[in-house]
Each structure stands twice: as structure tokens, then as C-alpha cells.
């Protein structure tokens, strides 16, 4: 049966990282996964709105989830942070008392949330619903010889009680995807750590020390690039990499790919289709090295 999802882009893929939205849609087309975009969905709150207004964040996500529910579809996210926040909201909204309280605020809007929508990140869709064996078969341009460091980001892993997918201390899903694409996963301790993005505007120096440490560790272990399922991690690792280099007094130059960009390369999609030109750290050379044109 054809896979079909209510597609929740989140804010970053509509703002700083349009290449993430573009690459996701290109990969979905190539894999024959149908995406119905939730164009009226709001920001998930990113945990930031919830810091001050927990119920507001919950209600915004109940509204988002209700949109997918009305389509009779599970929601697919492409942002680790959205996944963490919406997963958690969905767990909270399974409690009837909480759901009833939150739904009070939704009356008069597009509809209330009954609690029946599942929320899956693209990474989970690939591993659990599409299947790694099928992905391997779909690969037309295996990324042979490419050494890829997985960078999970916090919210797709922790707190694991709300997510229930990967082992937060020893996740395997990105490694599985990397192998299915013909590339080789690089092990390094930073793969499950924080990129520091939430404090980059408040405490850039600390955030850049975190970025620098993870990038240098991955590079030291032989990574040609990193892949991340979170555009906020992508911003800190890619967009701010120059600042991290200043902080560490070292040139790093490690390309950072969004998950669908890496998948797309193995499916034979070109750098243009995957928006690789937008990546701040040059990823075009890497694309050329693996034979993408």
C-alpha cells in the first residue's frame, strides 16, 4: 500500500532551511511516498513557547494534530525538535482530562483533537514504515566509500519516554539509513549530544564550543560529512560552523547534510533538486565526489 502522510514542515524548513522542504519533497516523490502538506499548521512552539505558556503550546499542537486527524493520516515531521515537542504533546493529549481541557480552547477553530494521530519523523518513516531493505533496493547511486557521521540532536532522542523509538544512549536508526544508502556510519560520542542551538542567541560562545567539539571529534574519527534529522542542529552545525571555527581556532570545513539530502544523493537526485547549494559549508564537492550531477 502506498505510504501517505500529513506533512508537517515546521518553521525552519519554511525559513532558513528551505532546502530541507525541497529535498524532502524530492525524496518522497522518488520513493512514492505521498505527502499532504498541512499548510495552515502553526509552529510547534519548539519548547520555547512552552517555557512560559505550557498550555498554549499544547493547544497549538492539538490544533496541528487535529488537522492530520481530519485527513485520517499520521503526521510526518522533518525536524527533530518538532518531533520531540509534538510527540510529547501527543502523549499528554492521550489523557482524557488534559485533552478535554485543551480542546475547550479549540472550539470554534478548525476542530477538536480526538487523540488518534500518530507522529513520525521522516527518519522513523524510512526505518519503520518504508523499511531499510526497500530503501536499499531503491538506491541507484550507492554512496560507496562515503563516511557519514550521524548527528541525532536532542529532541528526537530525549526524554525517550515520550518518543519510544531509538535507544537514547545507543540509537541505531540513522546508522541503519546510512548503511542502506551504501555509505559507512562513523562512530563518535557527539552523535547523541546537543548542538547548543537553543542558547546560540544568548550564549554564543558556549554553543560554539559544543559545535566545535562535536565537529572535530567526528572529523577526527574520519567523517567526510555529518547528517542530521533536525534543521536546528543543521543551523548550528552548518550555518554557524564559521563561528565555531573561530571559537576553536581551527579550520573544520565539514559538510552537514539534512537527512533527505543524503538519501536523495543515493537516489540519484541532483544537487539542484536537493538544494545543496544552500548549505553554507560547501556540500557541492561532496556531491560531485559521490557522482551526483
Amino acid at each position, binding site marked *: 500500500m502506498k505510504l501517505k502522510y500529513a506533512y508537517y514542515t515546521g518553521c525552519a524548513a519554511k*525559513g*532558513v532551511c528551505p532546502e530541507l522542504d525541497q529535498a524532502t519533497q524530492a525524496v518522497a516523490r522518488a520513493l512514492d511516498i505521498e505527502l499532504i502538506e498541512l499548510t495552515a499548521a502553526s509552529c510547534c512552539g519548539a519548547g520555547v513557547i512552552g517555557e*512560559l505558556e505550557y498550555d498554549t503550546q499544547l493547544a497549538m499542537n492539538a490544533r496541528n494534530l487535529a488537522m492530520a486527524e481530519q485527513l485520517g493520516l499520521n503526521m510526518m515531521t522533518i525536524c527533530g525538535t518538532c518531533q520531540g515537542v509534538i510527540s510529547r504533546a501527543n502523549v499528554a493529549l492521550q489523557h482524557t482530562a488534559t485533552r478535554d481541557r485543551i480542546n475547550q480552547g479549540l472550539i470554534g477553530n478548525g476542530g477538536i483533537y480526538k487523540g488518534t494521530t500518530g507522529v513520525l519523523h521522516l527518519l522513523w518513516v524510512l526505518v519503520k514504515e518504508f523499511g531499510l531493505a526497500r530503501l536499499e533496493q531503491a538506491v541507484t547511486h550507492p554512496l560507496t566509500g562515503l563516511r557519514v557521521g550521524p548527528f541525532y540532536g536532542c529532541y528526537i532522542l530525549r526524554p525517550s519516554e515520550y518518543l519510544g523509538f531509538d535507544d537514547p544512549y545507543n540509537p541505531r536508526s540513522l546508522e541503519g539509513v546510512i548503511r542502506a544508502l551504501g555509505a559507512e556510519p562513523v562512530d563518535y560520542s557527539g552523535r547523541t549530544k546537543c548542538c547548543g542551538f537553543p542558547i546560540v542567541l544568548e550564549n554564543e560562545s558556549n554553543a560554539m564550543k559544543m559545535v566545535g567539539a562535536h565537529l572535530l571529534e567526528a572529523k577526527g574519527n574520519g567523517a567526510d560529512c555529518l547528517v542530521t534529522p533536525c534543521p536546528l542542529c543543521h543551523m548550528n552545525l552548518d550555518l554557524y560552523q564559521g563561528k565555531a571555527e573561530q571559537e576553536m581556532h581551527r579550520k573544520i570545513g565539514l559538510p552537514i547534510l539534512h537527512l533527505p539530502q543524503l538519501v536523495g544523493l543515493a537516489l540519484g537526485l541532483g544537487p539542484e533538486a536537493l538544494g545543496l547549494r544552500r548549505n553554507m559549508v560547501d556540500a557541492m564537492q561532496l556531491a560531485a565526489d559521490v557522482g551526483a550531477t
Partner: protein
Amino acid sequence: MRIEIEIERSNPAEGQPARFETFRVEVPRHITVLDTLIKLKNEVDGSITFRRSCRSAICGSCAMRINGRSGLACDTLVEDELHRFGHLRVQPLAHMPVMRDLAVDMQPFWNRVEAVNPWVETAPEREPAWPVERETLMDQAAVDEMDDTSKCIMCMACFSACEVSDVDTRFLGPAALAKAYRVVADPRDERKQERLTALNEVGGYWDCTRCNQCVQACPKDVKPMEAIVHLRREAINAGLTNTAGSRHITEFIKIVRSEGRLNEGRMPLKMVLSDPKKLLSVLPLAVDMLRHGKLPSPIHPPIPRVKEVRRIMDKKAK
């Protein structure tokens, strides 16, 4: 079953740097990491050094890094670790100097806890005369609010797991800030504003990056990061809005209310406009972003049905 365990051994006082020593030992199937260490100490090498007491996840003595994860050795099964990682490697907690093997000098941790004055303070004139006639009554909601943070057993697993503490020794860390919230939330405490003001500085609640490592590591479900988030909320509600952290939250909410989404082109602008030095430092980055088509317009049309989002946000803001 016959297992292998790698123990990080060191004795800095005698100039022995850290190295892993591998022990092979026959153990019952459901043995904990702590009982394995005790067995090794009793039967193989009496010099293996670690802290332990209750063996029941109550005292908090035996926290260490087990396959990289900070947690209690007494509530970790060897078999689970071997199943998850294929190996078993124990190391002392991070962010504190090692005294010997798995025992660390806890002083840096205690210094942080002390720094938040983790006791309830009442104005002297309202101190009940001794002997007190009856207990102070609290309503259940107030008790519930303090419940998570009251469960802390000071095992230091969260401090060891804290990622900001990896890069900044000034950060008070999860346990101390959770303790601070425990007191701030206590209706008997009369220094709430003072406490929030003191922790509104460098090293306080705004330095947390919300990585959730402490929540994941805590063996008692204290959820230290949630306590830090509560401190931030209390601070903003108490009028402490002079920090970048506070502005980040309030501006984020304003932008989402106006557009339905976070406009990443507007957010940093709000953060740097008030600070010319910062503005200058981000200009080269902004130019580079523009070159890569990654600079969103600061003015963006709102999402369809944005009014619904505004209604939700306005309702809760009351």
C-alpha cells in the same frame, strides 16, 4: 555467565593516569554493575575503588558512567548493558576531579548546591517559636509542584551528564538548580524574588541548553531541566525580563502570534538590534546567509487561518 568488564583505573595522587583495565569474571545472569564491582573487589582486586552503600537506588552513592551514560551502578543490570552496547565499560562521573578509579572529589558539586542556599527561609519575625505547636499546612497543589525536585538523592548523575557543564564550569548545573526550584516553589520560603534575581545571572537558569540529558539520566525522575524551565517562567512572571533568554521567549511568542510560524529572519534581529556590538558581529554571517539563499525576509505573510493560532495564544495569555 562469563563477562568482561572494563574499569577506568587511575590514582592521580601517585601519578597514575587513567587507563582501562579489563576483568573477566563469572557472574549470575541478573547481577547489577555494582554487585559485579563488589565481587571483583572482594575476590580479585581489593584496590578497585568506588563509592557504594545501599545497593537499592536510595542513597545515590554509586553513580558512575556506564557505557558513557551517567547513572547508578546498583540499578543497572550487566546483561542489559551487554545487550545494548555489546560491551561493559565503567568510568568515573564527569566534571569532577577523580580521586581514585571510580571515586570522584564531590566538592565541585557541593559548591554548586551550596550556592543556591537550598533551605527554606522565613523572616525572623515570622519564625514560629520553639517548640512549634503544629506543622505548617500546605495545599496539595503546592506539594505536587515540589514533588519531583524533592525526590533528588544528590547522586550527581545529572551534573555528570550535563552538556553545558562540558563547556562551562560556571554553570550551576541541573541538581543545584532543581534544588533552587524546590525552595522557590515552597510556599513557606520568603526569599523567592531574591533567589530568582541571583540565579538570573551567568551560571544560572538561562545557561541551560535544554538538552534533556539530565532528565534522561536521573534515576529518581526529578526532571531537573523541567525545574530549570519553571525557574525561567517564574523569573519572567516576576518581572525579571532583562536577559537575552527572557527576550528570546517573549519575542518568539510575539512572532508566532503574528505569523503563525517562527520567522528565523526576525528572531535574531530582535535579539541583536538592542546591542550594536552584537549587530556588527552577525553582519558577515547575514551576508553569507543571503548569498546562500538562507536569509528569510523579516516580513513574511502569516499562515492560513492564523487567527485560530492567535485565539489560542490570547486565550492562554489571560
